[in-house]
C-alpha cells in the first residue's frame, strides 16, 4: 500500500519517537509512506483561534502539495493535524469561491479531494485481519486502556470517525492482536494537554483523572494515537502522583503495540525514550 505522509511539526520535534514508531511499524506492514515534499506547519496549535483564512490556507498548501504529488490519501499521525487538514479539505471541496481563493493563495491548485486519514484509519485500510495475520506474537500481558483523547473523534461533524463519545476502533484492533483492552470511563475525556503552558494545576488534575481511572479499571498501560496526549500523560505523572496517582502507567503509541505484534524490535520503535519506562514484560 502506498500513502501520502504528513508528519507535522510534533513528529519532527518533541515527538520524534512517534515518527520512528510510525515509520518502523508501517514498514513492517508493507505501507509505503510518501512524505510530502516541502510541507509546512498546518497551524493546528494556534492559527485556528486567530485567523480563519490563515487556518485554511496553511493546511491548504499541504493539501495542494499532496494533489500535485497525485496522492489519493494523506496520513497525518497527529489527530490535530488530521482534523485541521480534514476541515480545510471539506471546506475547499464544498465551496467553489474558497477553492479559487485558496489555490491563489497557496499558488497551487487545491480541489479538496484528498482523503485525510489518522493512524487508526491507516490500520483499518490495511485491514485488522491482515495485520493479525502478519503478527508474530500475541500481545499477552497487555491490558491497555485505549485513549482517544478529545481530537480523534471530534468534532464529529468534521472528522466523521467512530462514535464521538464511546469509540471502539482501537480496542477492536488490539483485541485481534491478543491484548485485553479494559472497559474504562475516560476514553474521550480530555487529558489537559492543551493547557500545558497556561494552567499546570489544571493539567495535573485532568491527567490524574484519566490515568487513575485507567489503573482502577485494571489497565497496565495506556495506548494513544496522538503525540500531545502521549507527551502530556507521560510527562505529567510526577504531578499526578502528588494528587494521589497510585502507580506509574506506561504510555504507548498505538503504532508501538501494532509494531511489537508484527515483530518490530522495541529499540527500533524507539519506546525506550519515555518518561515512564516501559517494563520488560511489555516490550
Amino acid at each position: 500500500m502506498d500513502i501520502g505522509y504528513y508528519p507535522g511539526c510534533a513528529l519532527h520535534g518533541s515527538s520524534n519517537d512517534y515518527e520512528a514508531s510510525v515509520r518502523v511499524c508501517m514498514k513492517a506492514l508493507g505501507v509505503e509512506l510518501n512524505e510530502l515534499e516541502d510541507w509546512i506547519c498546518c497551524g493546528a496549535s494556534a492559527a485556528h483561534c486567530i485567523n480563519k483564512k490563515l487556518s485554511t490556507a496553511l493546511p491548504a498548501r499541504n493539501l495542494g502539495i499532496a494533489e500535485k504529488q497525485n496522492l489519493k490519501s494523506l496520513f497525518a499521525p497527529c489527530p490535530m493535524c488530521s482534523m485541521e487538514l480534514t476541515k480545510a479539505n471539506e471546506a475547499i471541496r464544498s465551496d467553489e469561491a474558497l477553492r479559487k481563493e485558496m489555490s491563489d493563495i497557496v499558488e497551487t491548485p487545491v480541489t479538496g479531494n484528498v482523503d485525510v486519514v489518522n493512524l487508526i484509519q491507516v490500520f483499518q485500510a490495511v485491514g485488522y485481519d491482515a495485520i493479525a495475520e502478519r503478527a508474530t506474537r500475541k500481545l499477552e500481558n497487555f491490558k491497555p486502556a485505549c485513549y482517544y483523547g478529545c481530537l480523534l473523534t471530534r468534532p464529529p461533524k468534521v472528522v466523521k470517525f467512530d462514535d464521538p463519545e464511546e469509540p471502539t476502533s482501537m480496542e477492536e484492533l488490539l483485541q485481534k492482536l491478543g491484548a485485553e483492552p479494559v472497559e474504562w470511563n475516560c476514553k474521550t475525556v480530555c487529558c489537559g494537554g492543551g493547557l500545558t503552558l497556561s494552567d499546570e494545576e489544571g493539567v495535573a488534575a485532568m491527567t490524574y483523572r484519566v490515568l487513575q481511572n485507567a489503573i482502577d479499571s485494571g489497565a497496565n498501560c495506556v495506548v494513544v494515537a496522538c503525540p500531545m496526549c502521549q507527551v502530556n500523560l507521560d510527562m505529567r505523572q510526577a504531578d499526578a502522583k502528588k494528587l494521589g496517582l497510585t502507580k506509574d502507567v506506561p504510555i504507548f503509541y498505538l503504532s508501538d503495540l501494532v509494531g511489537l505484534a508484527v515483530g518490530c524490535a522495541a529499540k527500533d520503535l524507539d519506546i525506550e525514550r519515555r518518561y515512564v519506562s516501559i517494563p520488560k514484560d511489555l516490550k
Partner: protein
Amino acid sequence: MAKIGVFTCWCGENIARNVDVDKVSEAISKLPGVACSMNYKYMCSEPGQSLIASKIHELGLTGVVVASCSPHMHLKTFRKACETAGINSYLVEMANIREQCSWVHNDKEIATAKAIELIGMAVEKVRRNHALEPIKVPVTKRALVVGAGVAGIQAALDIAAGGVEVILVEREPSVGGKMAGLSETFPTLDCSQCILTPRMVEVGQHPNIKLMTYSEVDKVDGFVGNFKVTIRKKARYVDIAKCTGCGSCWNACPKKNKIPNSFDYNLGNRGAIYIPFPQAVPARPTIDADNCLRLQSMKNGKELCGICQKKCQTEAINFHDQDEFVEVEVGAIVVATGYQLYSIKKEQENPNIKGYAEYGYGKYPDVIDSLQFERIISASGPTGGEPKRPSDGKTPKTIVFIQCVGSRDNAKGITYCSKICCMYTAKHTMLFKHKVHDGAAHVFYMDIRSGGKMYDEFVRRAIEQDGAQYHRGRVSKIEQVNVDGEKKYRCYGADTLSGKPCVVDADMVVLAGAIMPSSGVQQLAQKLSVGYNEYGFLSESHPKLRPVETNAAGVFLCGACQGPKDIPETVAQASAAAGKALIMLSQPMLTREPEIANVDEKLCAACGACVKACPYQAISIEEIRDRKGNFIKNTSRVNPGLCMGCGTCVAVCPSKSVDLIGFTDDQVYAQVESLADVF
C-alpha cells in the same frame, strides 16, 4: 353569452390601502362578458352578500368572481350566497387580491395592476366553468380506532356513547398504553391507574365497542365512509372467550418470573404465559411463543411442558392457534397509536439520529429512562412503589434527573421540544422526595417549560416545598465510580447560572428521553394515506383549524401519535376526534367536492403512469368490455370516493387522457393566456 359579475372587496383597508379598487372595477368592466363590475367595503358582510345576490337576480348572471381574500377564507361563504341567489355554486370563483397582492406589495400602482391581472384570470376561468353537483357517497356507521392508550380509549368511549359501533384495535395484549404504567400524574398527583382502569374496564364491557387486542391493521381499502379494513389477530394461544382469567396457567408456568416484562420496561419479569399487569383488559393471558417451552419444542416435533394446558379447566389453551385475518367495514378511522421514548443508547436504528454513548444508558443498569422510573415509583410496579435501583435493589439517596435527552439537541438529530418532560421530571423529584425524605433530587435542565393551568405552580412546588435542586446546564458525561466502596454514577454537569462545573455523584440517573412516535407508525400511515413529518409524527390537516383531521378524508388523529402531549391534551384531542367522526357518521350521505380527476377512457392507453403517481391510490387499471363481455381495452379509472383532486395524475399522463373536473387544462391555459399581453 356569458354574463359575469365581478365584485371587488376593499377588505376594510386591507386591500384598498394598496389596491386602487375603483381603477380595478373600471378596468375589469371592460373585459368581454363582464356584465357588472363593482366594489364594496366588506363583500363578506351581509350587505356585501346581498349586493351580489341582487345583481344575480337583476342581471341574470351566469358566473361570479369575488376578488377579495384567500378562497380558504371565504370561498364557502360566497358559493353559499350565490347558491341561495339561484346559481350553481361551482360557477363562483375567487381572485385572491389580499394575501397574494395587497399584503405583499407596497407600491400601489404595481399592486393595482397585479390585482387586475389576477381578476382577469379568474374571469377567464369562470367563463369556462360548468355547473357541478357534489358527489354523494353512502356511509357505514361504524368506526375503527387504532391504538388503545388513553387517547384511543377516550375516543372509543365517546364514539360509542354517541350510539355508533366502534372496533378498537390494540397491538398489545391489553389496552391502557403508557398511562397504565405511570405512577401518579401531574399536575394533580392523582394515581394514573385509578383514573384509567375504570375506563379500561368500560371499553372492555361497552356494548357498542368491539375490542380486538393483540391485533394490528393489516390492510386498508376503500374510501371515506366506506373503508374495508383487514385486521390481523395475532395468535394468542388462548381462547379469550373460553378463558375465565383464573390464573392457574400463569402461576404454574415453569418460566414464571423468568422473562423480562416489556410492560415494566424489562425491570420486572413475567412467565411465558402471562398477563402484562394485574389490571389488564382483557384480563386474559397470552402465550409468548418465543419463550414458551411447548411452542418452541413443537418446532422440533416434540411436545415439552404443556403444564398450562393441563391446569386449564376450561380448555382455553390451544397450542395450534394461528394468526387470523378479519375484515371489517367502517366509515371513519381514528388513529391513536401514541408514542415511545427515544432509545438513548449508542446504537440507533435511524441513521439521522444519534445516541448518547456518554450517558452509558444500556451499559449502566442504574442509568434508566423516565418510563422505567415511572414503574419504579408506581405502586403496581416491580418494586411495589419502593424506589430501588435496578443493579442491587438499594434505595437511592441521590438521583440525578437529566432533561432534554435527545430533544432540542441538534447534534443528536432531534430538534423539537418533547413538551412533557419538564413537567414529569418535576413530578419525579416530588414523588422521590415523598418516598425518600432525606434523598436529594438534582435536575439538569436547559429551560423549564411549564406552560399550562397550574403547571408552573407545580414545578415551583417541586423546587420550593420538596427541595429539588435545579441546575441550569447539561451533563456531558456519566461515569460509574466507586466512592468509599459504594457504586456511584458521577455526572459531570455544568451550572450555567453560576458559571461553574457541577459534578454530582448519584446512586441512580433518570434520563428524560425525547418523545418519538410509536414504532411502525409510518407503515400504518402509508396504509391510510396519512402524511407524517420527518420524525414520523402524523400530520394534521391544518395545525390550527383542522387539528384532528388528516388530509385523508375520514381519517382522524388524536394523542401522542400527532406530537408529544400530556394526558389532558390527549384526552381533549381524543374527544375532538370522536366528535368529528360522529359528525361525519351522522350524515345519511357524505358529499364530496366534485372537483376530481376524470379519465377519457377512449384516449387512455392504460400505461399506468397515473396509477403510480396518485398519492391516494385513487386510480386503478380496469377492463372495458362490451355488452357481451368481450374485452375491448384496458383503461385507468378514478375512484370518485378516493380522489382528492390533487391533479398529480393530470400532470403525469403522457396522452393527456386525464383531466380535473372544474380545473381542466382548458381552463388553466385560458387563465395563463389571459396574461399573454402582460409578458
